[in-house]
């Protein structure tokens, strides 16, 4: 059975060009870039190229890039560094829909005595800017707001938010893990101080990421050790992965247009067809300010895990924000923050495409998906042939 991979916000395939660039650095050019001999030195020079490539994609200078092991490490480094550099201030502003790398981190910081404001979002997953402005106080150290939401693809106006923070002398960090490589971004023209990115979300290997830190930003390292990354991140560089990340960034820059035309058109075609063919369905999140590859749909009166396992029988890979897939018994925190009704939240499916998807795959999904929902609805006590009979009395009493 062939695999139809529509779960690219979870992880992506390594691009063949990326793998090809990585391979020599395992067995042949395995030197340590910090070594004094030229066998290691040549590797160090190659890392400089990778740093240039990453910087170019996001409009940064090479010295503003710190290589890390993943997006989570970048996020942790950014926030901890901001706090360490401003010991007098105790307030952090973020949102209710962040990735766990920020969400769980600020929960820990709250236990450590920091005051945390998690901004709510509206039904389409958007922030209220007045509300945001009011949350910024003289005690606020850092704001961390994701650029694009991993579940819904909804984009936050981070460039505008960063300016507002800067005007009050507050550091601004953004988790750009889902945005980098999918939408054009240029940090030269923005007030963003720190940005996290992750290799495996843009066709590089797992286990490599980067943190952008604007020149002149006070920085405190997270991993203490050797002098690598100019003393900003101890630990021998993951050379092949970093070289691969450089190539992936170069490819992403080249494919940005394809991402926003071809991928977007596949996504839109699939989304529109499914909404049209399946009654009682909807899009979760703002359809306009959204990543071009992401579609988060809900199907009333059916449960997400059941949908995923039926899709799995056809080799179709997607994900869900339902309670059963998270293991947490409640639908995803993102859908709950958006106030998605229970009848919809449990039946959410996220499709996330990439430039490697092709039209026949989308046609196949459009053909196979509606009967799955139809069949699961015949199993559902809240659905009678062709119509919802939700026992509202029953769930309103909870």
């Amino acid at each position, binding site marked *: 059975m062939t695999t139809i991979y529509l779960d690219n916000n979870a992880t992506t395939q390594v691009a063949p060009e990326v793998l090809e660039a990585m391979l020599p650095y395992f067995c042949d050019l395995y030197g340590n870039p910090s070594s004094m001999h030229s066998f290691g030195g040549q590797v160090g020079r190659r890392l400089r190229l990778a740093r240039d490539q990453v910087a170019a994609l996001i409009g940064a200078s090479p010295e503003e890039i710190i290589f890390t092991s993943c997006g989570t490490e970048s996020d942790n480094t950014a926030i901890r560094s901001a706090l360490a550099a401003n010991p007098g201030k105790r307030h952090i502003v973020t949102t209710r829909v962040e990735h766990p790398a920020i969400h769980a981190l600020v929960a820990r910081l709250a236990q450590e005595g920091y005051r945390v404001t998690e901004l709510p979002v509206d039904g389409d997953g958007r922030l209220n800017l007045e509300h945001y402005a009011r949350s910024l106080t003289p005690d606020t150290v850092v704001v961390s707001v994701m650029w694009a939401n991993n579940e819904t693809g909804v984009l936050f106006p981070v460039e505008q938010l960063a300016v507002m923070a800067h005007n009050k002398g507050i550091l601004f960090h953004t988790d750009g893990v889902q945005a980098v490589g999918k939408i054009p971004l240029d940090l030269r023209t923005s007030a963003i101080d720190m940005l996290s990115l992750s290799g495996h979300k843009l066709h590089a290997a797992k286990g490599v990421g980067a943190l952008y830190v604007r020149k002149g930003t006070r920085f405190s390292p997270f991993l203490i050790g050797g002098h690598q990354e100019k003393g900003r991140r101890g630990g021998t560089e993951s050379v092949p992965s970093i070289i691969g990340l450089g190539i992936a960034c170069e490819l992403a820059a080249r494919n940005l247009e394809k991402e926003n035309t071809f991928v977007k058109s596949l996504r839109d075609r699939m989304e529109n067809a499914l909404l049209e063919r399946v009654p009682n369905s909807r899009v979760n999140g703002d359809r306009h300010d959204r990543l071009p590859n992401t579609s988060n749909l809900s199907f009333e009166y059916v*449960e997400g895990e059941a949908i995923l396992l039926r899709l799995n029988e056809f080799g179709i890979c997607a994900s869900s924000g339902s309670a059963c897939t998270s293991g947490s018994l*409640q639908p995803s925190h993102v859908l709950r923050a958006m106030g998605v009704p*229970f009848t919809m939240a449990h039946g959410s499916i996220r499709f996330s495409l990439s430039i490697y998807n092709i039209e026949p795959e989308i046609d196949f999904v459009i053909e196979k998906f509606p009967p799955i929902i139809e069949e699961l609805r015949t199993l559902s006590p809240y659905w009678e042939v062709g119509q919802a009979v939700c026992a509202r009395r029953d769930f309103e009493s909870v």
Partner: protein
Amino acid sequence: MWEYTEKTLEHFLHPRNVGEVENPDGTALVGNIACGDALKLTFRLDENGKISEAKFKTFGCASAIAAASALTEMIKGMTVEEAEKLTNQDIADYLGGLPKEKMHCSVMGREALEKAIAHYKGVPVAEAEGKIICECFGVTEPEIERVVRENDLKTIEEVTNYTKAGGGCGGCHEAIQEIIDRVRAIPRPEAARPRLTNLQKIKMIEETLEREIRPALRQDGGDLELIDVVGNKVQVATRGACASCAAVHLTLKDFVEAKLKELVSAELEVEEVSQ
């Protein structure tokens, strides 16, 4: 991805007995859409009182669908009395086991069965009433007590896996811990009553008579003597005031036998013999 058994996946992909029985003898809807799963069970009895038809409708994940499908297969051909004895563990076992985080699916099956049988009998379900402990998922104190007792649960996490209680805001964790402590402090009936050898049983009967029963009788000028133990029949002879008391059979039944049942074995019966 969950580690489902082949049988679970098979029942999920090809569920048996989907739908609703026409003119059912018993029917129940448990769970609700807000909590993420719900099960409607209907069954009908044949002229011999056996379940001839059972059908389900489930809103929920793969294991919720599989557990309901399994339940309907299991109860077909059973009498109501037999079906009443099914536990959630029986449902999980039928599927070759469920991931521990999914045990609540088997509990939902057992609850639906119990509620449908109660509907058939026209009696209320004890577990459905009682104080709500978990507001997020609407789980009551008797429900939690029961799963802790029946499945030998030791931690809050296990209770959450079996009932969902405590899996939302977490505000009830303290109350759940109190229930676990309370239920586990009462030794489980099987554990407290290991099967006795005849010798042990006679020894315990003698001790109980000496310690608990004869001193009380003597206060009223009466007494009794253990003559023999035949199977579960405890033969005693009355002495003193008891020998001439018109109400002695009440004393033997309501006091002596009750004490022996409580402290030695629930199967004991007291008989008076003259010697």
